[in-house]
Structure formats: structure tokens, C-alpha cells
């Protein structure tokens, strides 16, 4: 029985998890690094433990310190959030060994799905469609030529242990096959200590569509439909939506069933995501599985009407899935935009600093998952994401309208943000029409940074405000604030002679 959960994370996701804990009557335990003492997750939690210096590898990635905090607090379970230790097989094992429930899959599942070749093999064996290619390591130049020709150009050579684009080569022409394979192997060896590479057919400008699944320890697995994640900058998701504008009911049914098959193939327990590549002809291929909660999970929560964190906790505790597949229905449309402390107009330079003012957009159809507050200093050590803005509408158009309204009214000063950039995405024709793929950001790069409007009047008023502000700061202030002074005299008077309510 889970009564207390340590959240081995920080920022918005730590708060997100604590909210569900509180709703379930479960105590939450925060951990924090030196830079995070004033972070909201520390004072939002029921308890908080210091776990080390600011850099992640000395605190949030420090397994011993986290386990020690869990033991000291008497936590029954650890929720890893996303990032940090969430897909760390050794951490999952360690929790088990210490008698603490890890809210996530077993180390075996993490290992199988974390290695790309073993995941491919497992999926192929289970009848899941993968991008055409090999499921074996290329051992020789002969292998390379034979296999690439069989798969058909163009292809991607990928490192089995890969990640972050390393050990990856695009090969379009026959003459580049051998050099491409050799380069990928040597880069993979250098980066991961393992030169295993394999070949996949290149899917040109694909859609990135993922299915949410949840499984329990009683053999039940359901999917909660799709998320369209094709708006990416340098392989980082920027905007997600659900449903996908590309989807048809038939395709959804087929892909959903395949996602459940994939999860069942590894006896998956917990929340996970099956990522697919989908081409313009609606061919779809298993890409990889994320064995954790995704950043973009709220759009599924809103459209399907569920709480994924609660479901994670229930199944981790040995409980049954709270829903059958037929209970789950999509309603309306949801969009998430990720608010970053970065300056899109200066090459997306990160912008840590102190938040001066923040007015979070509220009202109908808006959910805002954040963690910052006025006066908070965004530290330099972690991800620049400061919040997630999520809109819901009865139609896709309404979800876009609401997102635009919320972005326009999200007032934040003190650090640079990408709020305007996100607004431009919503305004772009390709996004508005739903006709986009992973090439979206590149294709619309100029539009997204352009300044269409005429700001003459706004600029003049900015000057006027600055003029008045400077005038006030330097004391040349005529008779502003006189009212206030008059009023507060009453207070002093009241104090002096003493006051009583009868």
C-alpha cells in the first residue's frame, strides 16, 4: 500500500506528480539540489530532502542520495518523472533491492526497450511493424552492401546504443554505403563503446505520432490514443496535439492495437509510449518505446478524461487498470506548447534569470503546468522549460484559438521566452491547416521569426511608459501617489489614538 512517494525530479513535473499524490491522500517527498532550495517543488511537497550540489550528476542523478532520502522519509515508492533516472535500469533494480516500489517498469523491460537493436528484434518477433531494415549488427562491408540493397536506398545507418543523433548516417547513394557504415561504426564506438550499427529505410519527412499505453500487473494493457508530435526543433518537441490531424478512425484502431501488442510483448506494467513514424501514405512503423511518463501526457489526460499519474501509482501498487479499452473515448482536441526560457530571436540562446512578473493565462479550456513564481531565479543547471500551456477545445480550431488567446495573455518578464514564437506557430498556415510533418519548423523558419505587424504605435507607447517610469525613478514625479499618502495617514492616526470595534 503506497502512502508516501518520493519524487526523484524537479520543476513542473515534480509539481504535477505531487498534485496527484495530494488528491489521492498520499504524502509527497521532494528532493532538491543546492540550486533548488527555493524551487516551488520544495515548498509544495509535504517533506523535502537535500541531495547534493547543483549539477544533476551530483544530485538528481545520484542514486545513493535519493535512496537515502527515500529511506529516511519512509517513502513506500519513488516516482522518477521524466528525464533524470526515469529510464535507468540500474535505478529500477536498486529500488527493488531496497524494497521501494519504482513507479515505472522493471530493469529488464527498460533494458530491452532501451537498446535499439534488441527492441527492434522484440518488436519484429511480436509482429509489430518496424521501419524496414535489419535487426542485426552489420559485421562486414559485404553485409553492408547486401543489406542496404535489400532494404533499398535511401537508408539510415544507426548505432544500436545510440541517442542524440550520434552514430547516425544518412546514405542516399550506393557509392556512400561502405563509407557511411564505417563512419557510423567508428562514431558509435567512440560515443558508446559499442560499434554495433544497423540499417533502416529512410522515412522522408515523417510524422512523429505516439500512442499512450498503460499496463497493469494482471496482464491488462490499454492504449489512450495518439499524440501528434511532429513540430520539433533539433529533435526537441515544441508543440504536441491530440488527436493527430493525420489520423483516420481505421488507422487509429490499427495503430492502437499495435501499440498494445508492443507493450504486451514485454509484459509492460505502468505508463509508456510507443512512438511511430508515419509517412504521407499513412504507412506506420514502430520507432521506439519510452518507458516513462512523457512531457506531453496532459493532452491525452484532457482529451480522454483521465489522470495518468494516478493510473501509474495504482498499477505500481499492484492494482488493476482503472479502465477497460471500451471505456476510453476521445473528446474534443488538445494542444500543448512548451514554454522555454530561451530567446528565439537570438539563436534560441537559453535565458536563465530572475522572474520579475508572471501572469499565468487562465480561464476556459486552459491548463497550465508550471512551477515558477515572481522572484524565482531560473537556475542555469537544468532544462530551460518553465511551463507547459495546454488548451482544450471542442474542435481543433477552438483549441488553436484558445492557445493563441492564452499565449497572448501569458505575461512574463525578467527572462526571455519563446512565447511569441509559439504564437507564430499557431498562426502559420501549415499548422492551422493541420498539414505538417517533422519538416515543419525548417520549412517555416522565416515565417516563425518574422515580425509581420507594424509596431509604431506600440513602440511610441513603450517609449512613453519608459519616459514616465524614468521620471518617477529619478524623483521628477509631479503629484502621483498623493492619494495613497493621504489615505495611509488615517492608519497612522488610528494607530496613535487606538481604535476599537464595538
Amino acid at each position: 500500500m503506497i502512502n508516501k512517494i518520493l519524487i526523484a525530479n524537479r520543476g513542473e513535473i515534480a509539481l504535477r506528480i505531487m498534485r496527484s499524490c495530494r488528491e489521492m491522500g498520499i504524502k509527497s517527498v521532494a528532493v532538491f539540489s543546492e540550486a533548488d532550495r527555493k524551487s516551488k517543488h520544495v515548498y509544495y511537497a509535504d517533506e523535502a530532502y537535500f541531495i547534493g550540489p547543483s549539477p544533476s550528476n551530483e544530485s538528481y542523478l545520484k542514486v545513493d542520495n535519493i535512496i537515502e532520502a527515500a529511506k529516511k522519509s519512509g517513502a513506500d515508492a519513488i516516482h522518477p518523472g521524466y528525464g533524470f533516472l526515469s529510464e535507468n535500469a540500474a535505478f529500477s533494480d536498486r529500488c527493488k533491492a531496497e524494497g521501494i516500489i519504482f513507479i515505472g517498469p522493471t530493469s529488464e523491460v527498460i533494458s530491452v526497450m532501451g537498446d535499439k537493436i534488441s527492441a527492434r528484434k522484440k518488436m519484429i518477433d511480436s509482429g509489430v511493424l518496424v521501419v524496414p531494415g535489419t535487426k542485426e549488427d552489420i559485421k562486414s562491408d559485404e553485409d553492408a552492401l547486401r543489406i542496404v540493397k535489400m532494404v533499398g536506398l535511401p537508408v539510415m545507418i544507426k548505432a544500436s546504443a545510440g541517442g542524440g543523433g550520434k552514430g547516425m548516417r544518412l546514405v542516399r547513394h550506393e557509392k556512400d554505403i561502405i563509407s557511411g557504415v564505417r563512419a557510423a561504426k567508428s562514431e558509435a564506438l567512440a560515443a558508446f563503446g559499442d560499434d554495433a550499427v544497423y540499417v533502416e529505410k529512410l522515412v522522408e519527412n515523417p510524422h512523429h505520432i505516439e500512442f499512450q499505453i498503460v499496463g497493469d500487473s494482471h496482464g491488462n494493457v490499454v492504449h489512450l490514443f495518439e499524440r501528434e508530435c511532429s513540430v520539433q526543433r533539433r529533435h526537441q518537441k515544441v508543440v504536441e496535439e491530440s488527436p493527430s490531424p493525420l489520423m483516420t478512425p481505421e488507422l487509429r484502431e490499427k495503430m492502437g492495437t499495435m501499440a498494445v501488442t508492443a507493450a504486451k510483448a514485454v509484459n509492460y506494467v505502468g505508463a509508456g509510449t510507443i512512438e511511430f513514424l508515419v509517412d504521407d501514405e499513412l504507412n506506420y512503423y514502430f520507432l521506439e518505446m519510452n518507458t516513462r511518463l512523457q512531457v506531453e501526457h496532459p493532452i491525452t489526460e484532457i482529451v480522454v478524461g483521465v489522470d495518468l499519474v494516478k493510473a501509474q501509482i495504482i498499477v505500481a501498487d499492484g492494482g488493476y487498470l482503472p479502465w477497460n479499452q471500451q471505456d476510453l473515448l476521445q473528446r474534443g482536441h488538445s494542444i500543448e506548447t512548451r514554454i522555454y526560457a530561451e530567446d528565439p530571436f537570438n539563436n534560441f540562446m537559453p535565458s536563465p534569470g530572475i522572474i520579475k512578473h508572471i501572469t499565468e493565462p487562465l480561464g476556459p479550456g486552459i491548463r497550465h503546468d508550471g512551477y515558477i513564481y515572481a522572484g524565482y531565479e531560473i537556475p542555469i543547471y537544468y532544462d530551460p522549460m518553465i511551463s507547459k500551456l495546454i488548451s482544450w477545445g471542442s474542435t481543433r480550431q477552438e483549441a488553436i484559438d484558445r492557445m493563441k488567446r492564452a499565449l497572448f495573455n501569458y505575461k512574463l518578464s525578467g527572462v526571455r521566452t519563446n512565447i511569441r514564437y509559439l504564437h507564430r506557430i499557431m498562426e502559420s498556415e501549415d499548422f492551422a491547416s493541420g498539414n505538417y510533418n517533422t519538416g515543419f519548423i525548417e520549412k517555416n523558419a522565416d515565417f516563425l521569426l518574422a515580425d509581420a505587424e507594424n509596431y509604431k504605435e506600440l513602440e511610441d507607447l513603450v517609449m512613453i511608459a519608459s519616459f514616465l517610469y524614468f521620471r518617477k525613478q529619478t524623483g521628477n514625479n509631479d503629484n502621483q501617489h498623493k492619494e495613497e499618502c493621504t489615505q495611509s495617514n488615517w492608519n497612522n492616526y488610528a494607530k496613535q489614538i487606538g481604535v476599537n470595534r464595538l
Partner: protein
Amino acid sequence: MKLDIKINERIATVEMIENTGKTFKIKVDDQIYEVDSKEVKDGVFSILNDNKSYLIDIISGSSNKNFEVVAWNKVFPVDIIDAEAKYLMSRGQGTTGDDENVISSPMPGKIVKIMVKKGDVLKAGDTVIVVSAMKMESEYKVKQDSTVQDILVSEGDTIEGHQPLVIVE
């Protein structure tokens, strides 16, 4: 440093035992706490006591010895009792400077009706003045038989909270 602090009817002695730089060792009456306290924004303290997390929001009151403190959505009226306050208390004036002869409203509002005029002789419970704020009218009465000494406001006036309205004796 050592202070007497009052919340409602309770008065406790609060004393700094040690400032380790990381934590404060502070004694409240007989109990010693070792807390990690950070001011996350003006007047808002995040306190970790034995790893339990508290957020405490302090609003300055009408003097620098008088706060309204919000924690767990509960409001605590806090008075710092120093020598001056002790002297006043010993003379029976209390820390908030209560004075039954001054009639005031704890909330800002507007004077709807003044029921008395200077020199009127009143009986305990007589209504002196009616104040309206936010669609609600409140009547202020005298606690004991008295005479109206002075009327400091007129009907229709907008008033501050705790502003003296009528003086009786």
C-alpha cells in the same frame, strides 16, 4: 536575540540559539527547533523543520511589530512584544492599542448613516453609525452608556479600515 511573541491568547518566548549558516537553532518556549528557512519572496518563508515543508506568508500590519501570517490558508495574528509593548500591556492597554472610546470599522467602506450627533447621551447597545462595504451594511454600537464627544466623518464619506469615526466617553 530573544523576543516574546503573541498569537491570539498565547505568548511564547522565542530565542535564537545558533545560526549555523545553513540552519537556525531556535527555541520556542521549551522546545528547540532546528530549521532551514529561506525567504522565497518578500515576506514568504519556506521552512523545513525536520524535513517537513511549510510555506509561511507574512504581511506587515499597521506597525513593524504586528503581522498577519498566513499558513495552510489559516490566518495567524502575530504581535512582537518588546519592552514598549510590555509597558503598555502592564498599563492595561493591550498590544493592539484597543480603545473603547473610539468607534471604528475594521473594514474600509462608506458611511451610510450617522445615528447620533455631538453631545448625544447613549445607552449601551445604541447604534452609532452604519457602514457599507461590498453590498453589506454593518451597524456599530456603543458597549456602555456614554456621551458623543466628536464625530469625525460625514454621511457618504469613504473610510479606511480602523479609521476613527466617532469618539464617545
